[in-house]
Structure formats: structure tokens, C-alpha cells
């Protein structure tokens, strides 16, 4: 069954998302690394519009520059050419209102769960009562209430990622960037964490950009998926999923889900094979 006949929406190769306010934008972004003996074109050119409140996923083969894209959007690194804007202003350093959940476990082992979650607020000088209120909420929301006094070493990988998500959540970010946050977890935990992420997204009305190598995750969670080519990565396809806002992991059992993943794999497979053929990872 071809993707076209299945009913998945075919979207022209334009970064514009129809009729919604643009929250963050990348235009002509490229990232080049100067190595001692060569130049590495890691990314670009990238054109991307993120609509406000959108859940957008990025899938692509290894090494295509997905993480670099996230770094540029978050202000952690600067592009060699092109512009990145957030809420209308150019990105320079990490803007206020951006939260990032990294691939590696970033929970601080020397603090318990509660102190981990409260960390950013305390540094920002928020008053104690407000901190307590927000931390209690986030801890409860992420299902960590029974572990509030535990230390990360005592928790599983999934729980530690929840701590990192809670820590991001308390800062009330308007844009949440996630770099393969569930990469280290098993499939079943991933599906459940995906549901948590959707809950979070609905609750905060934030714009979410999720980087993942798992097609099913992208297809199930997002409003829109961008497919990237091999290095230097550019967007070669955008797929609208058309899901309802109150979706959860049970969409995996619908035929439409199969169509979306088929569509994603159609383009991605070609790119992934290039990586395999080159012998590098």
C-alpha cells in the first residue's frame, strides 16, 4: 500500500505550517565544524517554522545533525550562516522560556529528587513558597511523589528521565526541546513515557520539538514530523499526522498510524542505507 493511497496527508516541501503563529524559526541555518585536518558540514541548510503549541518531531539517520539542530534552536551553539529566532527575537545564548531534556541522564546525583527539581528555580531566585508550590506540582505530575526524597542513584533510568523532565517543567518553558530523551529505555517504558510527554504537552500548552530515531514514537506523538537526510542534514519531507490533541499511545493500533510510519520510512530508509553502506555509524 503506497503512502499516497492510504490517506496520509501529503504535504509540499515547505517549512510553513498553515495559519498558525510562528513560535520559533530557522532560516538557512548551517553548522560547520572546523577540524584540524578538514571541515565538517554537520547541518544544513535548514528551514523550519515551529507553530505555537505544535508537537513537532525530527527523525533522521545517525549523524545527520539532529542534536546540532536542537543546540542551535536552544541557543547552546551558533550557526555558521542563517538565522534562528524565538518569539520573534534572534536567538543569542539560551533564551528565557526554553527548556531542554537531554539524551543522557542529567539528574544531579548529589541532590535528591525534590532538590533536583527545585534547582533551577532556586538559582533564579524565585521565592520559597512559589518554589514549593511548583515543585510539589511537578513532582506529583510526573509521578515522583513517593520518591521525592530519594537520590537518583536509587532510581531507574526511566525515573531519572522523569526527574529531568520535572526539572524542566517547573521552569514553565514555552518551548520544550527533547533530544532522544527515551533512547536508553526499553520499548514498553518508552511507550508509557510517550503518553506522559503528551500529557505534559497538553497541560503546559508549550511548543514541543522532539528528536527521536524511533519512527513509531514520532508518528504516534507528533502533529508533524520532519524527516532529515544524511549529513549535512536537511529536511527532505514533512508529514502531517492529523491526530487529535487528546491522543495517547493507543493510536498505534490504527491503520493511519501504519500509513504515517510507512511514509516516514519510505524516505528515511534510503538515507539510512547510505549510512550503512558507508560503514560508519
Amino acid at each position, binding site marked *: 500500500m503506497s503512502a499516497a493511497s492510504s490517506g496520509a496527508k501529503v504535504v509540499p516541501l515547505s517549512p510553513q505550517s498553515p495559519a498558525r503563529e510562528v513560535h520559533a524559526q530557522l532560516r538557512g541555518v548551517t553548522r560547520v565544524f572546523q577540524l584540524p585536518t578538514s571541515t565538517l558540514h554537520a547541518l544544513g541548510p535548514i528551514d523550519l517554522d515551529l507553530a505555537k503549541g505544535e508537537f513537532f518531531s525530527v527523525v533522521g539517520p545517525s549523524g545527520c545533525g539532529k542534536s546540532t539542530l536542537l543546540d542551535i534552536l*536552544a541557543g*547552546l551553539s551558533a550557526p555558521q550562516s542563517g538565522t534562528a529566532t524565538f518569539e520573534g527575537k534572534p536567538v543569542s*545564548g*539560551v533564551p*528565557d522560556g*526554553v*527548556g*531542554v531534556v*537531554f539524551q*543522557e*541522564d*542529567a539528574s*544531579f*546525583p*548529589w*541532590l*535528591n529528587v525534590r532538590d533536583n527539581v527545585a*534547582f*533551577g528555580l532556586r*538559582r*533564579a531566585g524565585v521565592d520559597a513558597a512559589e518554589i514549593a508550590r511548583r515543585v510539589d506540582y511537578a513532582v506529583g505530575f510526573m509521578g515522583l511523589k513517593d520518591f521525592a526524597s530519594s*537520590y537518583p*542513584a536509587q532510581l531507574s533510568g526511566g525515573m531519572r528521565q522523569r526527574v529531568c523532565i520535572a526539572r524542566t517543567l517547573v*521552569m514553565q518553558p514555552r518551548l520544550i526541546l527533547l533530544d532522544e530523551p527515551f533512547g536508553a529505555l526499553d520499548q514498553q517504558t518508552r511507550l508509557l513515557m510517550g503518553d506522559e510527554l503528551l500529557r505534559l504537552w497538553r497541560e503546559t500548552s508549550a511548543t514541543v520539538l522532539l528528536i527521536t530515531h524511533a519512527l513509531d514514537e514520532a508518528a504516534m506523538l507528533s502533529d508533524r514530523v520532519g524527516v532529515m537526510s544524511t549529513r549535512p542534514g536537511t529536511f527532505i519531507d514533512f508529514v502531517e499526522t492529523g491526530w487529535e490533541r487528546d491522543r495517547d499511545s493507543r493510536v498505534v493500533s490504527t491503520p493511519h498510524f501504519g500509513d504515517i510510519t510507512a511514509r516516514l520510512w519510505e524516505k528515511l530508509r534510503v538515507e539510512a542505507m547510505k549510512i550503512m553502506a558507508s560503514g560508519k555509524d
Partner: protein
Amino acid sequence: MPRLAGTLIVLLCFLVMWQGFHLLVGASAIASPLQTVLKLGTLLTQADFWANISETMRAFVAAFAISLAGGVTLGIVLGVRRLAGNVAEPILTTLYSIPKVVLYPLVLLCFGLGISAKIAFGVMHGLIPITLFSMNAIRQMKPVYGRTAQVMRLSPTQSAFTVIMPAILPEIISGVRLGFSLTLLGVLIGEMFASQRGLGFLLTNAINIGQVDTIMAVALLLTVFAVTCNSLMMLLDRQVSHR
């Protein structure tokens, strides 16, 4: 606690072997455990013994303070400045494996026969391990902590004190623990051959007069001191770590 019971049994066996050894070779070669403890007790009531202890401690505390401050600072600088760290590391490890005792005459010629020579010996032994461990602590720090601090928009000072320092502290404490023991060793060896005061001197003096019980009493005192301090630091490490 069953774990500690095993260790106590081992220590008990050691005591038994010690006593057995004493009976075997005689009191002129090895003092019995009881004799050693009694001698130590007697020594601890003597004022000049305490004078020797304080002499050693003064040198040790000064040497340790210098090794600690210098080692941690140098280690952090070398850890942060990658190139400098990579260049310096093999040099430091080679210096570390040189039997420092070989350089002692040079130290004596520089500092003379006083307490500054002893402090120099101590620093010679303790500085490099603390430096290497501190450097390693920074290098081993997970990069994601730094990026988290960036995303939270922390100021450099906040980042240093609330993220980097707690992250590297356990590794630094390991280095400090080792540096502590080595600094003590350095000071003692210095006293053993180049001083007229201190516990090290007491040891070599006791060999010369053949006072076996004194030798063993001082050895016992130093062992107990070193092991106690080491255990305390290990406890501190566990407290700070939560890992």
C-alpha cells in the same frame, strides 16, 4: 553487623600471629602486642613524646595544606584547559613514579635541615596525586551537567559552585585521601633520616639504641592515626556522594 565481624576476625588472627611471632623470635626482636600497647601508653604520658608528635604534626599540617590547595587548584586548571592537561599529564605521572627519596639530598641542599625541608618532602609526595585526581575529576565530569547549567542560564559563578563543584567533589576527595597518606609518609621519611626531632626521628633513633618496644609503639600509633583519618575521609566521601 556480619560484615564488620569478618574484619574483626581477621584483625584477631593478625593479633594472634603477632603474638606467635613474638614468642618465636623473642622480645629483643619483636615486642608482643601487650608490650607494645603498654609502651605506647607510657610514651603518651611523657611530655617530650608529645613534643615529637607536635613537631611531626606541624610539618604535616603545613605540607598537607600546601598540597591540598596547590593540587586542587593546579588540577582544576589543567582539567579545564584541555591542551595543557594533555601535555602535562604524562610528565606528572612520570614524576610521580620517581622514587622521590632520590631527590631528598637536593631538597636538603635547598631548604637546610629544618622543618621547611620536612614540609617540602611532604609536599613532594602529596602534590602530584592530588593534582592528577583533581584534573581527572574535571575531565570525567559528564558534559551534560555543563549543558544543563547553560540551559538553566546560570551565571559562571553559579555554575561553578552549584553544579561543577558538587559533580567533581567525590573524585577530588579520593585524591585528597591518597594525598593525605602520601604527605604523611613524606614527612615521616624525611624525619627518619634528616631530622633530630619528630616521630620519624624517634623511629630511627630507637633502631640505633635497639629499643624494639619503642619502634613498635610508634609504628602502632602512626598506623592507628593513618587508618582512622582514612576511614573518616571514606565516610565523608560516602556522605557527599549519594551514589
